[in-house]
C-alpha cells in the first residue's frame, strides 16, 4: 500500500484520519462530546434527588391555633412544616417552596394546587395526621416495607437519555459543521478537483464519527456506574448496537443539514431548528409520554425518541436488541432517507 500511494494510506483511511485529527485538535468539540454529559448528569442528580428523599413541605398559616397544628405535623416523619403569614404562604405555594398550606381552623382549610402530585400527596398525609390528632381512631396500622428497586432513581433514568442526546448532538453538529467548514474554506471544491471519490469523503465523515462514538457512550455510562451507582442490566453489545444505529441515523441527518449550506450562521440555525424540538419532546429530561396523545405519533417518530427509548430499555430493563427492533428500524429509516437526499442535493463547491 505504501508503494502504490507514495507513503499515503487508502484515501478512505486518510480522510477518516484527517477528520479524527481535526476533532481531537479541537478542544471545544472534546468538551461537548465528553465533559458536558458528565457535568449534566451530576447537575441533574443534585438538582433532582430521588423524590422519596425529599420531605413534604407544609406551610401553616400563622394564627391562634397554629402552634398546635405545627406540633402535630412536626412529629410526623418526612414532613417539614413551617409557619407562614398570608402573603408569604401564597408566595411559597406559587414557587413550590411548600406543597400545601394549612389554615388552622375548625375544621382546617387546605390550600394547594391539585395539578401537582406532590401537593395531593401532602394533602392526604396532613389530613390523616390532623384527623388522628383530633381523635379519629385508626382501625389498624399497616406494616410498611420500603423497597428500593435498583435503577429506579431519576438519575438512572436520565443518564441513558443524556447518552442518546450526546449521540444526536455530536453526530449532527460534528458532521454538519465539518462539511460547512470545508465548503466555506473552498476545501471541498479543491478536493473534488482531485480524483477523490465523493462517496469516500462522505463515508469518512461517518466513519470518524463511529470511532468517536465508543468513548462518548462509554464515558457517561462508566461514570454513572462507578460514581452514581447506576445499574446496567443489558449487555454491552446491545448498548453498542443501539448507539451505532443511532449514530448512523444522526449522521444522515447531519449530512442532509450540511449538504447545501454555505455559512456557519445558516448551519447553526438549521441545526438548532432540528435539534431543539428533540431536546424537548424526545423524553431526555422527562418522559415523552407526558405529551398529549394527539402529538404522540409525531413524538414517537423522532429519531432521538427511538434512541433514548431503546437505550433505556437495554440499559435499565436488560432488553435484548430484538426487543427494540422497532426503534432500530425507525432509526435505520432516519439514517438512509436523509443520506440519500443529501447525496442528491449536495453542493460540493
Amino acid at each position: 500500500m505504501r508503494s502504490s500511494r507514495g507513503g499515503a494510506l487508502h484515501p478512505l483511511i486518510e480522510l477518516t484520519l484527517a477528520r479524527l485529527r481535526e476533532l481531537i485538535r479541537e478542544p471545544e468539540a472534546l468538551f461537548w462530546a465528553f465533559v458536558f454529559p458528565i457535568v449534566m448528569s451530576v447537575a441533574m442528580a443534585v438538582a433532582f434527588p430521588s423524590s422519596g428523599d425529599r420531605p413534604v413541605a407544609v406551610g401553616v398559616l400563622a394564627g391562634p391555633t397554629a402552634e398546635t397544628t405545627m406540633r402535630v405535623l412536626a412529629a410526623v416523619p418526612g414532613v417539614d412544616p413551617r409557619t407562614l403569614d398570608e402573603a408569604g404562604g401564597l408566595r411559597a405555594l406559587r414557587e413550590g417552596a411548600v406543597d400545601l398550606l394549612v389554615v388552622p381552623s375548625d375544621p382546617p382549610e387546605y390550600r394547594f394546587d391539585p395539578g401537582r402530585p406532590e401537593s395531593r400527596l401532602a394533602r392526604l398525609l396532613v389530613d390523616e395526621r390532623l384527623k388522628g390528632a383530633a381523635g379519629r381512631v385508626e382501625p389498624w396500622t399497616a406494616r410498611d416495607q420500603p423497597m428500593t428497586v435498583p435503577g429506579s432513581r431519576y438519575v438512572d433514568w436520565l443518564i441513558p437519555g443524556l447518552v442518546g442526546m450526546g449521540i444526536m448532538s455530536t453526530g449532527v453538529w460534528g458532521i454538519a459543521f465539518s462539511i460547512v467548514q470545508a465548503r466555506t474554506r473552498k476545501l471541498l471544491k479543491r478536493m473534488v478537483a482531485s480524483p477523490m471519490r465523493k462517496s469516500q469523503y462522505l463515508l469518512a465523515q461517518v466513519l470518524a464519527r463511529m470511532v468517536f462514538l465508543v468513548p462518548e457512550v462509554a464515558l457517561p455510562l462508566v461514570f454513572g456506574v462507578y460514581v452514581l451507582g447506576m445499574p446496567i442490566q443489558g449487555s454491552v453489545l446491545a448498548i453498542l448496537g443501539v448507539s451505532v444505529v443511532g449514530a448512523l441515523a444522526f449522521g444522515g441527518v447531519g449530512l442532509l443539514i450540511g449538504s447545501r449550506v454555505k455559512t456557519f450562521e445558516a448551519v447553526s440555525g438549521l441545526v438548532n431548528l432540528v435539534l431543539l424540538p428533540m431536546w424537548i419532546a424526545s423524553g431526555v429530561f422527562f418522559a415523552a409520554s407526558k405529551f398529549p396523545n394527539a402529538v404522540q405519533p409525531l413524538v414517537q417518530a423522532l429519531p432521538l425518541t427511538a434512541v433514548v427509548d431503546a437505550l433505556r430499555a437495554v440499559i435499565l430493563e436488560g432488553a435484548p436488541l430484538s426487543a427494540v427492533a422497532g426503534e432500530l428500524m425507525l432509526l435505520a429509516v432516519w439514517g438512509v432517507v436523509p443520506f440519500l437526499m443529501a447525496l442528491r442535493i449536495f453542493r460540493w463547491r
Partner: protein
Amino acid sequence: MLTLTALVKQFGANRAVDGLSLSVGKGEVFGLLGPNGAGKTTTSEILEGLLQPDAGDVEVLGLRWASHERALRERLGIQLQETQLADKLSVEETLRLFRSFYAHGREVSALLGLVELEGKRKSWVSQLSGGQKQRLSVACALAGAPDLLFLDEPTTGLDPQSRRQLWGVLERFRADGGTILLTTHSMDEAEALCNRVAIVDRGKVIAQGSPQDLIASLGAPKVVTTQGTLEDVFMTLTGRHLREE
C-alpha cells in the same frame, strides 16, 4: 495539451466568458493575464472540469470532461486561489491526504523536498506563513505527478522572497517536462515564468503571444535597465538565497 474553442459562459446577465479560444502545447508555461473579473478564473475552472460551459468545445490532454473525468482528474494538478487548507492538520498530514487521492504520483517525502517544506513537516497549516501555505497548496496539486498543472494567481499577496521561491518550484516542474497554465494579474510574474501569454478582457482574448513579442508589438520605447530592477536590489539586500520564513 489543451484546446479551447469559442467558449461561452454566462452568469445571469453577466457574460463572463464570451467566445474565448486558445490552445496550449506540451512543455509550455501559458499565462492567462487580465484584470480582476476578466474571466480568467471562469475559463480555468471550465478547463478544470469544475464548471460547465454554456457553449464551445473543451479538450484537455486530448480528452473530454464528459467522457473521461476520472482519467483527467488523475493527470491534472489543480491549485485554486481561494482554497484554505485545514488549519489543524500538519504539512505532512495534508500532503498524505492529497497524495492518497491519486493512484500514481510522487512520494510524500519527495513532495516535501520539492517545495522546500521538509523543515515544516510537523507544523500545523495554521502556523505557516503565506508563502509556505501557497507552496503547500502547490505541492498538493503536484501530488499525482500531473502532466498539466493549473494555478490560479499563485503568488498574489506574497513577499518577493516567497514569490521567487514558488517560481523556483514551478521552473523545476517545467524542467521535468510539465505543462503549466496559470492565471495572474502580475505582469512581472508573467514575464518571469511564461513563454506564452493571452491577455483576457471582458471574456475575450485581446492579445496573444510571447511576452517579448507583446512588448515589442506595443512599440513603446522600452527603457533598457542594465543595472536591473528595484526588485533585484531588494532581493540582493534581503537575501536572494531561498530561506524559510
